[in-house]
């Protein structure tokens, strides 16, 4: 359970970061009006959320008591 949830949190966090960078933000285009807006608003916020979730997994791993 501990490993399971921790892994899910890390994967979810990384997934959110990758998703936000590649699909929601506009990392590569420069000279078009569309590029001044992220494809989805708050892409940067999602990126940070991803970081937070990924690192929170450490807290869970350490604090979780086990299923007794």
């Amino acid at each position: 359970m501990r490993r399971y949830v921790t892994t899910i949190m890390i994967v979810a966090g990384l997934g959110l970061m990758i998703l936000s960078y590649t699909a929601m933000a506009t990392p590569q285009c420069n000279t078009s009006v569309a590029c001044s807006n992220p494809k989805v608003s708050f892409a940067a916020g999602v990126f940070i959320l991803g970081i937070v979730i990924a690192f929170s997994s450490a807290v869970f791993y350490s604090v979780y008591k086990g299923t007794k």
Partner: protein
Amino acid sequence: MTAGTIPTTEPKGGHQSTGELPQKIGQLSPSWIVFFVAMLAVTAVGFYAYLLQVNNGLIVTGLRGLGTMAGATWGLYVAYYVYFIGVSFAGITVAALIRIFRIEKLEPVARIGELLTVVSLILGALAIMADLEHPWRAIVNLFKYGRPQSPFFGTFTMVIAGYLFASLVYLYVTSRRDAALLAERDSRFKRLYRFLAAGYTDTRAQRRLDRRVTFWLAITILPLLVIAHSTVGFVFGLQAGRPGWFGALQAPGFVVLAGVSGIGNLIMLAAIVRSATRTKGRITIDAFSWLGKLLLGLLITYLYFTAVEILTITYQPGASELTLSEALLSGTYAWIFWGAIASLVIAAVLLIWQALTRRWSIGLVVATGVLVNIGAVAKRYLIVVPSQTHGQLLPYSTGTYTPNWVEWAIVFGLFALGALMIGVFMKIFPIVPLEETDTP
């Protein structure tokens, strides 16, 4: 190998008496109150200056536009933002040295380092907020519209969010055991400790778990550290529009100078904590000598980078680089430049001497800590400001920039705020990890 990671070689601290918390936690001595009030006053002056700036615009500072206004648009705030972010280097590096390279002599200063990282990152974020007229708009828009192309995207996602959060997690995970120990005693913070401990039980299994967590955290935060400090370097190193900025050496140079200022700060803070919390028996000369060696390595690397940089801008400079290098080496900024070089070189000599004789003195190591921080602040200023006032690419007049009292008040206010955070932390939680008293 026993379950504990902390060696028990040091004599016991004074925290064995029941009821009383160790390291003078919760005891408000007169000198601490004086410190607290003084720092609060300086912070208040800084806050007043900030309000002045918010109400009247940045016109109240010494900053002015580039080009026709012949000023510097980035000044003290940005220089100190870079400096504060640099100081954050200390915590995770020490953590990594302990967890990955098993230099356990550094264990007593680990939490000081982590705290320094967290506090300096907060100060860095506040310094950049002080530079903005619309801080709330900035916070919302950065989250809402943040663009990965901008080097600032990296600094606020990687540094201010990622690095800060990761450091907080690390600080928390490594503090739970102490919270659990303290929660067993009667004190006014008992409920806080119990909350922080979150059901911690000091068992072999738990210790093994924590060791694994901290090891992997150190492993993952270490690359984050390099990325974070590099992104701050990229803010300058990717810009061809100003002389002296564009270059591949900026990012690694930022990482290394960050290390120099961070470890230097940690040395100073460790010395203060050592005498303020009566932990002279815990934080020994060994910790200082390790920090000194680490600082020496980083410092020599940085001096090498500086030599490379000077040679590059003086050997065959373009017109604007020439103007800039003259201003740096023999002109307006020469006293800052040579002052910085002198303090860094003197610090290096002091450390080399101690390393060669193998006789480390806490006083001397602390002196190098002070010197390298003077050098680091000066170098940060010289990265930010001269490229804006000198060597403009169009025939604008040479600019000038003198920080005024508003900027200094805010910067000192930030330092005082940082000191307050650390001072209050010291009165609530043991800043030096408690000793391993028994093995469960």
